């Protein structure tokens, strides 16, 4: 660990596509992730529709710090540390709900919806009015921002603005779901715990390689088609700071054929018609750009927000080096038809989550991949991340958007670990901004 703690961590060899397993199990590395990644990055906390009204709150996590996301009286969204400055007690114990203020159950300090300390028992009689209330409110996230309804917060005042942080790739990742309509979050977030490192879960979202094997039964029983679950044609888009999108994509020709088919109504329907259809809307195309318009894959907003194709996002919350909590949020356009609502709910209730026909087969593979990083001898052995390395090219679109058009690959994972390493090596945001890699060009 010495090297790493000294900021010189050398865990991923991007040249050879070889990774040191210890990053999935070492407690010191994990402690540093909490400081250098989660306490520094912009973290998704919830959707603004989950805190629609003043007083509406939703409890979320930034690393191992619990935060209250709440709409204050000025309709501003606040992200507050859920811990009282008096003795540290939790000021809000519900997962969600509506509050007039946050009254601490220990001594009754009372905090306004914006976290400011509005009063306490005995302020006059016991405190002799000698307490600087402005200095003792609930801890606030350093910055809070909303991108198309998705609420993000960072604990680091020196972090760049959210839109810069996301860059075109992170924004596109969110656009892919935000462009499906005026989205609202459905009531009910599925939560469960896995005995896996959080990065194993992130790695998996780029993983279109495991589908046929891990989820073969879902295809065999006809729950989902192989074409939709495991297409070979892939499109990978990589962005600054570790963001990325990986998965199926339409080549320019497929896209053209698709548009033609839509126009003429002739030709055999394809599995992606439904998702791609929305993108016939010029406004959406404008928004997504020529490359984004063809993307049908999985975005990850670094570090841990997966945007899934099922109108869902999954947050991967670290719970120690060997444990992760998965939270599934599901969205629906405000103007969805009853039929559309049914379809979305059906998918959400059957694909993912601990009982999901797909996801129930993932958990054990992830926890055992994490276990594989623990044995004294086993953990010395490298992990292979070489799929497709050196065989693909980044094509730059005139629009400025770029992507890798290829087959099933591990570009997304390599980019994730390379970026992760840069985050871990940087002493500060300034250092990270100065030293982080730009997305690759040319051969990858």
């Amino acid at each position, binding site marked *: 660990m010495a090297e790493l703690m000294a900021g010189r961590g050398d865990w991923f060899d991007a040249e050879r596509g070889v990774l040191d397993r210890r990053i999935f199990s070492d407690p010191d590395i994990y402690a540093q992730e909490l400081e250098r990644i989660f306490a520094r990055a912009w973290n998704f906390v919830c959707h603004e529709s989950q805190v629609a009204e003043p007083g509406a709150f939703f409890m979320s996590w930034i690393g191992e710090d619990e935060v209250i996301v709440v709409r204050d009286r000025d309709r501003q969204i606040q992200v507050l540390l859920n811990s009282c400055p008096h003795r540290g007690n939790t000021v809000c*114990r*519900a*997962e*969600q*709900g*509506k509050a007039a203020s946050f009254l601490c159950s220990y001594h009754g300090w009372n905090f306004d919806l914006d976290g400011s300390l509005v009063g306490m028992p005995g302020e006059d009689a016991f405190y002799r009015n000698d307490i600087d209330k402005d200095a003792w409110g609930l801890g606030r996230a350093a910055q809070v921002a909303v991108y198309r309804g998705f609420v993000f917060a960072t604990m680091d005042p020196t972090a760049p603005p959210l839109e810069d942080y996301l860059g075109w790739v992170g924004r596109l990742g969110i656009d892919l779901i935000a462009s499906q309509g005026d989205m609202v979050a*459905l*009531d*009910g*977030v*599925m*939560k*469960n*715990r*896995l*005995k896996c490192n959080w990065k194993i879960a992130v790695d998996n979202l780029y993983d279109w390689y495991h589908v046929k*094997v*891990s989820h*073969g*039964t*879902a295809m*065999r*029983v*006809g*729950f989902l088609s192989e074409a939709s679950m495991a297409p070979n044609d892939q499109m990978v888009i990589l962005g600054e700071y570790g963001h990325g999108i990986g998965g199926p994509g339409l080549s320019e020709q497929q896209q053209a054929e698709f548009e033609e088919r839509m126009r003429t109504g002739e030709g055999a329907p394809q599995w992606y018609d439904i998702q791609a259809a929305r993108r016939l809307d010029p406004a959406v195309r404008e928004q997504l750009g020529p490359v984004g318009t063809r993307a049908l894959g999985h975005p990850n907003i670094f570090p841990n927000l997966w945007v899934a194709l099922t109108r869902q996002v999954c947050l991967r919350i670290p719970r120690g080096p060997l444990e992760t*909590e998965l939270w599934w949020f*599901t969205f629906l356009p405000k103007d969805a038809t009853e039929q559309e609502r049914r379809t979305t*709910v*059906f998918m*959400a*209730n*059957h694909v993912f*989550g*601990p*009982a999901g*026909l797909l*996801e*129930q*087969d993932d*958990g*054990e*593979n992830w*926890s055992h991949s994490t276990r594989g990083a623990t044995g004294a001898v086993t953990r010395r052995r490298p992990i292979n991340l070489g799929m497709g390395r050196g065989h693909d090219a980044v094509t730059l679109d005139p629009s400025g958007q770029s992507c890798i058009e290829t087959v099933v690959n591990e570009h997304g994972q390599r980019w994730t670990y390379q970026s992760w390493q840069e985050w871990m090596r940087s002493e500060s945001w300034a250092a990270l901004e100065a030293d982080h890699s730009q997305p690759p060009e040319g051969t990858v």
Partner: protein
Amino acid sequence: MTAFADLTLHEQMLLTYEAEQFLYREAALLDDRRLDEWLELLTDDIHYWMPIRRTTTAKEIDREFTEPGGMAFFDDDRSTLAMRIQRLSVGRAWAEDPPSRTRRLISNVQIVRMEGDEVETTCNFQLYRTRLASEEDSWIGRREDVLRRVDGQHSMAPRHKNMEQTVILAQNMSSLF
């Protein structure tokens, strides 16, 4: 039509005994991995439902569960249940290979309603599962079942389960409850 409360104590006891034995039989089929036979017990209109539960303040306790039609851990009809079972027979259902070891403890069986061919029962359950060398999970909750007599045999009509956990403390729920 007679209500359950109008029956003699003896009649009530007989009905409860039948319901208990039915629920024990059902549990045994699942524990013994005889899933096809289990499927046979279900009526076509079964709704196998386990909502998401949330921690709320006492004031908002009515928002504790998600509503039918919304998000849920289980929201199955006969066809999706059949899929769950079929998965296990086509091989490579990794979550259940090696097979889990399960034991269902059923208790507190009560009949809360009787109507025509149907009796509505409630019971508490503990589903204990071990996997591989030393993984243990235990789920405890309450079930509501409707048992319908179809040509002399009992079958399961709509059925709801409530779990006590908000965050599911297990890597998956690959068992049926």
